[in-house]
Structure formats: C-alpha cells, structure tokens
C-alpha cells in the first residue's frame, strides 16, 4: 500500500513536468515565429523603417546576408520556428519520437544563431534588434532544453 502510494506520488508530476517543458518550448518558439515573420514581411516590403532609430539596423537588413539565393534569411527563421513549434506541441502531447528531432533542430538553430551573431559583430559591424531577439529566443530554447529535465 505504502509503495503504491509512493509510486503515484512520484510518477505523475514527472510526466506533467516533461510536457510542461515542451509547452514552454512551444511558447518561446511562437515568439521567435512572430519575430521572424515580422522580419520577413519587412524585408519583402523593402521597408527598413522597422529599424526605427537603431543605428546599423538597415545595414544588416540591407546586407548581402539578408537573403540566401534570393530568399529572405528571415523566411528560413519562420520555417525553423514553425517546425519547432509543431514538434514541441507534438512532444507535449506525448509523441516521443519527435523529441530527438526537436533537440537536433534546436541545436541547428543554435549554430545558425551563432553564425548570424558573428556576421553582425565581425563582418557587418552593425546589429539589428529583431535579429538579436531571434538569437535570444534560440539561446533561450537551447537553455531550456539543456537545463530542464525532459524525457528524451
């Protein structure tokens, strides 16, 4: 009896916590998705007024690195964040198979974010706040997945 009650006390919170981690990942991915969508549309309209008074922002958004083979770099961000959001929702609903994929995707996004930070800091010598926000979201996602326990 005692062992049974112990079993019940232990396992459900662990499960709840694991799905909660994926819900947090999904919410952060949504923020990244909104940011990347905004940047993509701003790029397509050719409007660097989104930069406001941030110095150097137009330099980043107007640079050769703002597109990859004619596709706005931010559009890849939209795809990545949307895929991540989908994977996180599925993971939260107990689809355990997507979890490995989710980790791999965040790892890839982490590397991409580092590369874009490098470009801004050392090649363009200019920063764009929306790009920095996206990088921050990716670092946050990586941090969440590394720090919080989730069944893999």
């Amino acid at each position, binding site marked *: 009896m005692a062992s049974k009650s112990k079993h019940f006390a232990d396992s459900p919170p662990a499960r709840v916590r694991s799905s909660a981690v994926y819900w947090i990942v999904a919410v952060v991915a949504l923020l990244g998705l909104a940011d990347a969508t905004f940047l993509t549309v701003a790029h*397509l309209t050719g409007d660097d007024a989104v930069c406001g008074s941030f*110095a150097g922002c137009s*330099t980043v958004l*107007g640079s*050769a690195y703002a597109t990859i083979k004619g596709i706005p770099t931010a559009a890849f961000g939209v795809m990545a964040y*949307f895929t991540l959001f989908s994977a996180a929702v*599925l993971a939260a*609903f107990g*689809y355990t198979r997507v979890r490995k994929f989710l980790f791999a995707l965040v790892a890839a996004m982490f590397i991409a974010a580092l590369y874009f930070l490098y470009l801004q800091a050392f090649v363009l010598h200019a920063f764009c706040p929306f790009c920095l926000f996206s990088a921050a979201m990716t670092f946050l996602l990586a941090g969440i997945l590394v720090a919080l326990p989730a069944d893999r």
Partner: protein
Amino acid sequence: VIRVAADAREFSASMKRFLPFLIISAVGLLTIGSAVEFYRVKTRLAPAPAGGPGGTPTPAEAPEDPFLHARGPRNAPVTLEIYGDFQCPSCALVSQAIDDLQKQYEGKMRIIFHEYPLEMHKHAMEAALAAEAAAVQGKFWEMHEMLYRYQSVWAEATTANFFFESYAESIGLDVARFRADRTAPDVRARVIADATVGNSRGVKNTPTIFINGIELRTGFTKDKLQATIEAALAPKKTS
C-alpha cells in the same frame, strides 16, 4: 447507455489525437494570415498595381515603397545606395560614374538614392524638395539628372526655384502641381525622414555610399567603385 459512454470516450480520445494537429494548423494559418495582413498594411501606400493579392509575393513582385528612389532589378546581386546632396559637386561627379557603372552592369546592379541635403549648401534643401516633388509625378530620376547636370548654374543663383521650375517644365511635369508639391509638408517630411535614417546609419557627409549595406570608405572614383562592385559580385559567381 454503455454504448453511448463508449462512443463519448472514443470521441474524446479521437479529439485528443487531433488536438495537436489542430493547434499546429491554427498557428500556421494565423501566421500566414497576419503576415498577409501586415504586408497589405505596409504596402497600402503603393499605387496598387493590378493583380491583387495571391500567393506569397516574391521580392521581385512585391510592390515597392513608391517614394524609394531605386533603379535596377530588386533582386540584383549588387545594391548601391547613395546619400546625396544635389548641390554637392562630388555628388554630381560620382552620380555620373554610377550611371556609367549601371549601364556596364545592367541587370546586376540596383541604385538607390537617398536625400541628404547639407545645411551648408544654401539651395540643397530646395533641390531635394524639387526632386521629391518630381517623384510625386513619377519623374524623380529625370529631375535628379537635371539637377546634377545644371548644378553649377542653379547653385550660385539667388532664387534656385526659378531654375527648378524650368527643369520641371522641360521634363514634362505639371508645373502647377510641382510647385504645390514642392512646398507640401509631406514632401518635406520625406526628405527629413530620408536624412534621419541616414544619420542613424552614420552618414555625415555627402556622398556616402553603401554597397550591399556596407559603407564604402575607399573614395569614390569610378575605378574604386568598380573594384568594390566586382568584389561584391565575386563570391556569388563562385557559389
């Protein structure tokens, strides 16, 4: 009763199975919807080219800011932006070099002109307003050319506006409208907005040139410009 309960359980189980996909689809639709709406709001000022919205616009199809003074294809591998003052002599020289280069790199180069009238030039602001007023009638580049070609004529005049009106007439503008637009507050606001963005990008003098967003600091002779353009084109060729 048992069957109804079983049906209900089955229904709730199947709902649970579909729920994640429902959420994902909803977010997907919401993203596409808000992107399209945001795009429409951003481009509402554009003189709507027929066709209407359909599918995701590619950069080449996307309507442009009607007050962005740009020549050359939107997806050109090299974009040269110049912050210019119509009364600055070196701007007139470099503008000629740029014209030549654009002919030479036809289809590969896009030129964007930004207003940056300097206070030290007494007619620079008036000239910028004249160019913007011409832009309202879709003839920015024609006025741009006239202003630089006859710079030495109007720069020293007491009333430069007299010359500007004659240029407006010769390039076929509606002069009455041109005169009204030249003093319109929104036209002036556009010049100031252009220059303000310039300030935020670190522009201090004219001409200031950006090639693919990177400020050119090597000087503005045709050879130096060409070398930078070649360098900008080179990695694209190999990739």
